[in-house]
């Protein structure tokens, strides 16, 4: 294992819980945060991290999750605006070295970047994959 990181994941939905399970299994110390306790049901039995129930837009909840000690914060709730806000707070108030937010709307990505928040856009990632497949198919078609 390279180094065990302390990772806070905000939003424990499909993406958040998947990341939490994988990162925990890889040996990192993970805290999953969600306002809905039932969301933690998607964590696997091998998940060895912590669960914090609460609204991450509240400073006290991020503090409880010890975001101030985090090496990395991943923000993946279903709401772009919430993600932006939490990511900014993590960066500005808790000085987290690395903060990544999911953003659904590709148009918002530029705004995020302007505010110094690193992003992953599922639409853009999916589009890239599809385009790659299309271009592979085209080159095969051309060579045969």
């Amino acid at each position, binding site marked *: 294992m390279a180094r*065990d990181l*302390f990772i806070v994941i905000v939003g424990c939905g499909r993406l958040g819980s998947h990341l939490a399970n994988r990162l925990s299994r890889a040996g990192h110390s993970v*805290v999953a945060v969600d306002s809905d306790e039932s969301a933690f049901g998607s964590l696997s039995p091998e998940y060895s*991290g912590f669960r914090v129930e609460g609204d991450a837009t509240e400073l006290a909840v991020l503090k409880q999750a*010890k975001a101030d*000690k985090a090496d990395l914060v991943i923000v993946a709730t279903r709401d772009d605006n919430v993600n932006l806000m939490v990511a900014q707070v993590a960066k500005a108030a808790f000085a987290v070295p690395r903060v990544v937010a999911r953003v659904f709307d590709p148009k918002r990505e530029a705004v995020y970047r302007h505010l110094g928040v690193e992003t992953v856009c599922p639409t853009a990632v999916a589009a890239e994959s599809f385009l790659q497949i299309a271009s592979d198919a085209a080159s095969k078609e051309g060579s045969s």
Partner: protein
Amino acid sequence: MEAKPVLIVDDEKNIRLTLSRALEALALETATAVNGEEALSRIREKDFGLVLLDLKMPGMDGMEVLRRLREARPDIKVIIITAHGTIESAVEAMKLGAVDFMQKPFAPKEIRELVRKVLSRDALVAEKAGDYGSHVELAKRAIANRQFDAAQEHVRQAIAADATKPEAFNLLGVLLEMAGNRLEAQKNYRAALALAPGYKPAEENLGRTVGGKGGGFRLGKSEHPPEDEA
């Protein structure tokens, strides 16, 4: 770090895993127990130096384990693990003799720092216990070298070794004043004077902080030549 093994006591698997993983990097031997009964029987089998103890466990709770441990093995250090928002019980446990506590969730770095701190405290006490004079001198040197954390530690130990002499209280006052805590500083200057009326350095320090006069800090004469500083 040469140290005895560490026992981790928690009913939650994830906590036991997180803690033992974090301590691996310190090259400490660890063992785990899932409840109070198991913890006590482990302690009978093996010579542990430190126990990380969860307070809330089914069956015998952490507080009871701590109580019994204090009776049987007062030499073993205990760090309490608490959930968020249960500081009161942690304080209660500190009164019973736990050395420190940490709140869930914890970062691996945080765990390692606390354990290292607790274990090195132990080493320091073992090495230099009881020698008031050399602690006072080492504290003065540390202040002169602007190593205030080290100075604080030496002062603390000097007071622990002998709380009837004025020098250490005067130095504690100086450290507090340097940190900007004038009122606390004055309290310590007065404490030094109460122990030894007319002790010059404390008198001058107090006079300066009360009267607003100029002048440097008075550390006191070097009467006890320090032993090896390392």
